[in-house]
């Protein structure tokens, strides 16, 4: 991302697309992600959303939180619904609208990946934003494909999850779409710029994967959402990057960490109850994986 074009708190638009007083839990990372992303998208946007925490955040009438048209479709079909909306808008001459699919990690990487992969392969003119809170939070914290290894959830109650986190953005990048990016709820301006950029790259599928801390699901007090989101990035566990037409580059805080010391990942694990049964062995394994990944970045 070009440094001198970065949005700052001073240049950020005042316009709000998301109403205050919505139904999110206190400290919800999605609240930040949704508000910021919709600011960047503006009013010429239509949404497709599957069942998820986002449908709760959007609220029950009359506590409706979004000033945009939204189709709240079935769980497996967010990208398919967005595909149909785009096709029909094109057919009726309203192609200027952003068609945005906004789904959780389960709706993206588990049940929804077939529809998303199909849309990416066809190169549908849509923006897909995945807010990744690393479990099924809306139904009460069950493991998902993107839950990290060792995390206690209600369906991994004994030893924690046995498998590593599914790398959804890499899977999507393997489709060769124009734009893939990761972002974090803790760095809303970075997210804002990426959504803006995605919106400007009309014509193909654009995918943004957003790391989204969840106080109730991860087990931390609501005031630490941003702190923990930042730790996720500064430890090198979750990296902020862009892949623009196949060109990979780290952005924001992650770019600044190249060649510099990173916070030990243990510091991140210690902040959240979901990692309570993590062994030292697994902590070391995770640290080793992070170090190996970053050795590639600096090489």
């Amino acid at each position, binding site marked *: 991302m070009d440094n001198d074009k970065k949005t700052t708190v001073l240049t950020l638009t005042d316009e709000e697309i998301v109403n205050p007083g919505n139904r999110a839990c206190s400290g919800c990372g999605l609240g930040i992600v949704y508000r910021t992303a919709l600011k960047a998208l503006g009013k010429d946007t239509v949404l497709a959303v599957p069942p998820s925490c986002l449908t709760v955040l959007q609220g029950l009438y009359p506590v409706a939180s979004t000033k945009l048209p939204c189709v709240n479709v079935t769980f*497996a079909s967010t990208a398919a619904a967005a595909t149909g909306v785009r096709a029909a808008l094109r057919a009726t001459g309203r192609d200027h609208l952003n068609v945005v699919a906004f789904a959780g990690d389960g709706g993206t990487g588990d049940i929804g990946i077939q529809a998303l992969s199909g849309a990416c392969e066809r190169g549908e003119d849509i923006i897909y934003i995945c807010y990744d809170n690393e479990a099924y939070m809306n*139904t009460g914290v069950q493991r998902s494909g993107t839950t990290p290894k060792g995390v206690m959830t209600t*369906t991994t*109650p004994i030893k924690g999850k046995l498998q590593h986190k599914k790398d959804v953005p890499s899977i999507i990048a393997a489709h060769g779409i124009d734009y893939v990016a990761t972002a974090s709820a803790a760095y809303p301006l970075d997210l804002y710029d990426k959504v803006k950029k995605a919106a400007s790259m009309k014509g193909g599928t654009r995918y943004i994967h957003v790391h989204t801390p969840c106080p109730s699901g991860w087990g931390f007090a609501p005031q630490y959402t941003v702190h923990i989101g930042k730790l996720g990035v500064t430890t090198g566990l979750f990296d902020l990057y862009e892949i623009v037409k196949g060109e990979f580059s780290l952005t924001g805080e992650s770019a600044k960490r190249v060649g510099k010391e990173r916070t030990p990942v243990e510091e991140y694990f210690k902040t959240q109850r979901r990692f309570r049964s993590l062994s030292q062995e697994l902590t070391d394994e995770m640290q080793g994986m992070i170090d190996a990944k970053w050795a590639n970045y600096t090489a």
Partner: protein
Amino acid sequence: MEENLVFVQGNEACVEGALYAGMSFFAGYPITPSTEIAELLARRLPGRGGRFIQMEDEISSLCAIIGGSLTGNKVMTATSGPGFSLMQEALGFAVMAEIPCVIVNVQRGGPSTGNPTHVGQGDVNQARWGTHGDHAIITLTASTHQDVLEMTVHAFNMAETYRTPVILLFDEVIGHMREKLVIPEAGVLPVVDRLRTSVKRGVDYHPYLPREDGRLPMSDFGGDHRYNVTGLYHDMWGFPSSNPKVVESLLNHLVDKIETNVHEITRYKELYLEDAEVILISFGSAARSTLHTVENRRRRGDRLGYLELQSIWPFPVDLIREKCRKARRIVVVEMNKGQVTGLVKAAVENPERVFLANRIDGELISPTNIKNILRIIQGRGV
């Protein structure tokens, strides 16, 4: 017995029933209001040598337990409306390939995403006809937690006996309500184990050749015998066939093995039917309010009778016709637009006697609701 007395949700009673029946493999996907079943089994199964897997959706959940059943395990999955819809294709496969499995549908308000945290009973006909093509199906239900446990055991027994998927149609109130449950000692409830073939290894085994009593002994997949399993019409070897005779006889077999055993499968409860002028028929959580209404009005001299269906499919047509022969009015209490009412009308003589008492707003139908509807039906005003 004291130590077996617990205070639990209906979903937990279902888990107890499944474990009692010897279920050893569960695959599922979170969905309100059935999620507790998966959560509890994630905790309970591994310690018993069983296996719990959270799948990536409901399609794979049902397909996974189909695979697990073939290899010789008693298996179950649990879901609610939208997930049950996704399972319909695999449900048909299990019917066609004759694979024992139990599918729990804790009903919520539908259609679509509907009313996820509220009660509904709108999936009665979906359980019967949700998957395409002619077929027969067994569907059981329950109104108390003790019954949830017993019907869950019965479901496994029926699945193993008839080599068929069995649907447990509970609802949100039953699933989430807490109530007393006595977990029976082993041996108290009958548990049917899988009928396995006596054909020796290396000797030809016909997976789809019924015995004289219609039952098909199974061989654990990947074990002593090599055989084919398909959703296509198939011969006694399990190999695909479009031979008209094979097709016709298989479809007849699939339907007859269940429809001719209605009496073995049917479970119901009755109260005061002998002298009842008005019979109230209900099932699931609606039956709780119905029973209360019947008891209450009896004490005031109203000759009401109570008939609770614990098995809905195959629909006990003969039973209903017989029990309702003398009643002046028949009122079906259910939380849908009259799915069982239509079945009762078709079953009884003089169907103009049959009325629907329902509530479809996501709240449990109350005894007062039923009483008021009864007064209208009886021409007494509200």
